């Protein structure tokens, strides 16, 4: 661990959504309020210049986490600090400066660009909001950004529909970089793209990180992509982090049974005809999560304690950089061999 304070600190963040029936119906049928706990008590830190990836299956809360970090959703509980400043400030008088420092790239490059605006205007929009640049300076900056993401400055005259998916995602990146942010939240930036185009976008993101010293939170469901981009990886399951570890450690020695299952479920290019170990069962309904450890109905190691107590994130003795929430790891039950 480095001595400097991390750029991003998330402490016990939670976001609950009220999905209750309408008030009258609730009163008449005597139903209680129902809360969807999309994110429930997540803590992690991201150091400067680092890429933290969050992985998990659909509905595990990774996109909600991304939106919490840029202030698109308010927190139900907990705290998010960016460089020591709480993101609750985003909506206050000093919010603008903080907002400049965090930007987001969305999954769908078809929905995140205004179809009626020319590319030049799309990219200059954050400059208008955050800087005092003259129109001439803005145009220069737009040219510079387009070159940075591998497009041509002449492209600023065109409309989003004239570009392919990969090029549009580059426009999104150029827009996010316009105001020189330090922290980029990327929510599945390549999952709508084809593999060869995905490679172009991932390469650009890595190059930019090196040149500009960017810090990324990278959300993805694709473990192979995560393995390529991340320095550290957090695995989420039903609104909680079950394991967080440096990339190589996580892939070489996954500890949580869910992580092990996810890794063995990756389609493998090397092993033709190899049978994967399919994860048994499916993600439970987040409105009625299982008691105790939410993974216990699918877990091959589950014992009685797993049904009663929710495990805390602990650091195993053999590696200080790993955090894992599992009774089996905590109490060092006999290691059960996983077929992989």
């Amino acid at each position, binding site marked *: 661990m480095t001595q400097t304070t991390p750029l991003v600190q998330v402490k016990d963040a939670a976001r609950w959504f009220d999905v209750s029936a309408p008030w009258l119906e609730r009163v008449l049928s005597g139903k209680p309020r129902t809360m969807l706990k999309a994110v429930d008590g997540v803590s992690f830190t991201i150091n400067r210049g680092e890429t933290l990836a969050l992985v998990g*299956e659909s509905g595990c809360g990774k996109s909600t986490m991304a939106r919490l970090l840029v202030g698109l959703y308010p927190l139900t509980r907990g705290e998010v600090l960016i460089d020591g400043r709480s993101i609750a400030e985003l909506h206050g008088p000093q919010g603008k400066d903080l907002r400049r420092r965090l930007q987001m790239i969305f999954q769908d490059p078809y929905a995140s660009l205004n179809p009626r605006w020319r590319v030049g205007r799309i990219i200059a929009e954050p400059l208008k909001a955050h800087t005092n640049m003259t129109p001439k300076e803005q145009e220069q900056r737009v040219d510079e950004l387009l070159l940075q993401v591998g497009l041509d400055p002449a492209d600023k005259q065109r409309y989003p529909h004239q570009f392919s998916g990969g*090029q549009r995602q580059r426009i999104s990146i150029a827009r996010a970089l316009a105001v020189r942010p330090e922290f980029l939240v990327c929510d599945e930036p390549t999952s709508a793209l084809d593999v060869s185009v995905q490679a172009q976008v991932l390469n650009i993101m890595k190059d930019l990180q090196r040149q500009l010293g960017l810090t990324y939170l990278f959300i993805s469901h694709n473990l192979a992509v995560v393995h390529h981009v991340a320095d550290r990886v957090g695995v989420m399951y039903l609104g909680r982090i079950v394991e967080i570890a440096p990339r190589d450690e996580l892939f070489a020695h996954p500890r949580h049974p869910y992580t092990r299952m*996810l890794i063995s479920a990756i389609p493998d*290019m090397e*092993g*033709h005809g190899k049978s994967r170990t399919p994860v048994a069962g499916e993600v439970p309904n987040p409105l009625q999560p299982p008691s105790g450890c939410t993974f216990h109905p699918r877990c091959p190691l589950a014992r009685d304690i797993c049904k009663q107590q929710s495990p805390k994130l602990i650091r195993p003795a053999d590696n200080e950089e790993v955090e894992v929430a599992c009774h089996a790891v905590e109490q060092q039950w006999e290691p059960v061999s996983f077929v992989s």
Partner: protein
Amino acid sequence: MSNVLEIKRLCVEFPTRRGTLRALDEVSFDIKAGEIVGVVGESGAGKSMTGAAIIGLLEPPGRIASGEILLDGRRIDNLPDAQMRKIRGREIGAIFQDPLTSLNPLYTVGHQIAETITTHLPYSYAQARERAIELLEATGIPAARQRIDHYPHQFSGGMRQRVVIALALAAEPKLIVADEPTTALDVSIQAQIIELLKKLCREHSAAVMLITHDMGVIAETADRVVVMYAGRVAEIGAVNDVIHNPKHPYTVGLMGSIPSIHRHTERLVQIDGSMPRLNAIPKGCAFNPRCQRRFDRCLQDRPELMPAESSQAACWLYEGVTT
């Protein structure tokens, strides 16, 4: 083994106001009984179009302009709709990407499977229902006898895809066209569905055309691979050859661009540019503007599939190379 499916020089065209667009250009390949052939390529390469042409569900104004599709030696591309309807479901089963849109939300899943069985096979409704329960059990749906009377919305995504697979297998077809069957699913569920598909095809010795853009799925499932680019076949070969020893420069780039958890690379191989639009397919080899190894001939003449070691590649690099 005999070919269940043979596609010969299939061309699909879309007439538009600005001229005719050729979406599939002389696509040829075959699938044997019990074989799983993967069809890969990027969006717009014509993978799904090939599948739609086989099951006779091309969106108008798209039409088969030339070429032949043979099922068990019989031509099916020129059959009238009424006859094609008898083949679809009975001899060709289809599995699509989104299991919710392939099921009718207003009928129970049991009814939908039983309907397919009674339409194609000489079963009474009660017998068909029993058979539907067996099929649902075979696809791994727990408590199938109770769940048969549930509606599609009462199933989760993975379970719905199992229902769709049961539906595709209901009349024991010879050929199954699976168009991105796992793309809408999470990895853990994906693995379950792939295993199921493999097991059922082995048991029924059905021929499978597996359309996907996920090379990992292909690597684990397919026996042979057809790589498509801009409506043409770029390479055909055994799965190991195509993945570990690709021949066509496009396949080489495609394989290099896939991140793997077994390799550490700072940068992925990238193919610059993007696939040409249908109205601007370059002369000669369609891949030539993006190809690192192009030479004069690639700009002039279109390469046919030619032998390249144990595979076949549509690339002039392999012309006259005897192996």
